[in-house]
């Protein structure tokens, strides 16, 4: 009997020891689409990234271009999960770089935010509702829930109730919208929340009365009103005229070192990286 128990306990401990790290690593890797060419080099450094879903497409393209330029230098592994997941992962040392679309907060300690690009955030409406322009007070009244009917919005081509669609509070996009458009005023309590840019795009496309906000890359097929008199375009964001642009960050634990430092420096300085960024985003230079 005692032998049974001892063996059982031993197996239980052994089972746990193998099970736990397995699930932990699966968690960080599972959403990943790895951006790497065929490789036989085990001695090459590996840069792992996780975090913002908005930054992920850009990070994947940059990684691919980097590998093309320096084929033998480094390998990449990219996962998503959201800005806060990336920041949590990098603080805990689970990844080399955490991608973030939200700005640093006072509570972020021990990590370093490297700015890599800027991204335009556009207010969008259904194509049936061709609002040409929204001033900041209008945006704040609509998203704050003080204006609830399209007939009260100047330039609107429809009438009827306004359906406000926003991102979940945990998203970096929501944080940026609150800062850039709302001046941190409260969002309407009746607003519907969506977990991704794509879901907002879909909702606004199918609902005549909807208004929301997305990254410029997701504004296709929707009506994009100008904000404070400037159209939400790549060119106006690059020139700085458009005031709804936010930052994309690559976060490292302390200042970046080794392969990650070289990669981030390449993103910030090489003309080739700037070209990759400027396809859909705003380069820093």
């Amino acid at each position, binding site marked *: 009997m005692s032998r*049974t128990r001892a*063996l*059982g*306990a*031993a*197996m*239980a401990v052994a*089972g*746990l020891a193998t*099970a736990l790290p397995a699930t932990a690593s699966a968690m960080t890797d599972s959403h990943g689409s790895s951006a790497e060419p065929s490789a036989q080099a085990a001695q090459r450094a590996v840069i792992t990234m996780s975090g913002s879903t908005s930054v992920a497409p850009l990070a994947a393209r940059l990684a691919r271009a980097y590998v093309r330029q320096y084929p033998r230098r480094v390998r990449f592994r990219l996962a998503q*999960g*959201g*800005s*806060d*997941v990336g*920041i*949590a992962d990098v*603080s805990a040392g689970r990844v080399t770089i955490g991608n973030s679309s939200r700005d640093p*907060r*006072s*509570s972020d*300690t021990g990590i370093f935010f490297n700015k890599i690009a800027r991204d335009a955030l556009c207010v969008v409406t259904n194509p049936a509702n061709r609002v040409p322009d929204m001033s900041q007070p209008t945006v704040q009244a609509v998203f704050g829930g003080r204006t*609830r*009917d399209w007939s009260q919005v100047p330039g609107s081509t429809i009438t*009827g*109730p*306004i*359906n*406000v669609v926003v991102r*979940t*509070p*945990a*998203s970096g996009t929501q944080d940026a919208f609150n800062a850039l458009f709302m001046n941190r005023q*409260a*969002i309407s*309590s*009746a*607003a*519907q*929340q*969506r*977990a991704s840019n794509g*879901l907002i795009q*879909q*909702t606004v496309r*199918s*609902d*005549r*009365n*909807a208004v929301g906000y997305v990254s410029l890359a997701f504004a296709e097929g929707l009506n994009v009103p100008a904000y404070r008199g400037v159209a939400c375009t790549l060119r106006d964001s690059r020139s700085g005229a458009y005031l709804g642009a936010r930052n994309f960050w690559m976060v490292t634990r302390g200042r970046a070192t080794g392969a990650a430092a070289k990669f981030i420096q390449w993103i910030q300085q090489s003309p080739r990286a700037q070209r990759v960024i400027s396809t859909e985003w705003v380069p820093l230079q």
Partner: protein
Amino acid sequence: MSDARAELLLGALACVVLLLIALMVVSVFAKAWPSFANNGAAWFGSGGDGTVDQQLERIFNSPSNNPEAAAYEIRAWPPLWGTAIITLGALLIGLVFAVLTAIFIVEFAPERMRRVLEPVVRLLAAVPSVVYGLIGVLVLVPFVGNELISQERKESVIFVVQLSGNSILVATVILTVMITPIMIAIIVETLRAIPRAWTEGSAALGVNRWRTVWTISVRAARPAIIAAAVLATARALGEAIMLSMVSGSTGFAPNPIDGLTFFFEPARPLAATIVEGAEGFSIGPFGATLYAMGAVLLVSSFFLSLGGYFAKRPLAKYGLR
């Protein structure tokens, strides 16, 4: 491998599973504790300062490096109520469909039809919930929003809530489609297992097939029907992705006295709230709040199993299992 060894090995594996479950329960409750401790029983109530979405946002934005200033206030009634009505609605509708379909498959369907029906039901049970969510977002939600809800109805509640088609109606309908196949599969198995002698005895007394099924087979299968309902409810409670896509994702408690409008009102069940907030797990108080919602789901599925067990016991005397 000797039998004794196999016994030890399998026993150890079973112990590992039990231990993992215990660890999971303990860690969920440990992480959830700050949220419950700060709110007390009011956690389950309604009201508080602002809506539940505003409370969640405050919790999310509270500084995590300064425990003194951390916000924890939450009144989670809207998501609780949303979970309850969507789950109960889907269960009630689904149960009726499941029992009737199972009877049809076992007793009435021609052989050829049965050969098609059964694999289709099994297939439906295996469709991933994201696919159902997509159908909801792309087809049902726009249809309900543009065709079923009139402009007047939208305007009548304009200062309270947005009616856009994302509603408890769509959520309940899709959830029903998701949980019914499991119930059908379980009930079909049991109806098949009813001893021939029982139904033949009834037929010999001149009772027709419908009455035989209803009074003998279904009565004998009651424990299995309850088991099916418990399993389906557990799946419905835990469903997150689909509900997050179609329920409207608003911290609003739909109000039954609104009449027909009630069915068009949005909500956001607990599981959907957790999956949507997953980006913020690293923020201490926000993580604790989400874990608290997870703990509530854990406890309710535990009581569900317990309730199912006690409901089955008196029935099992006259039935199967």
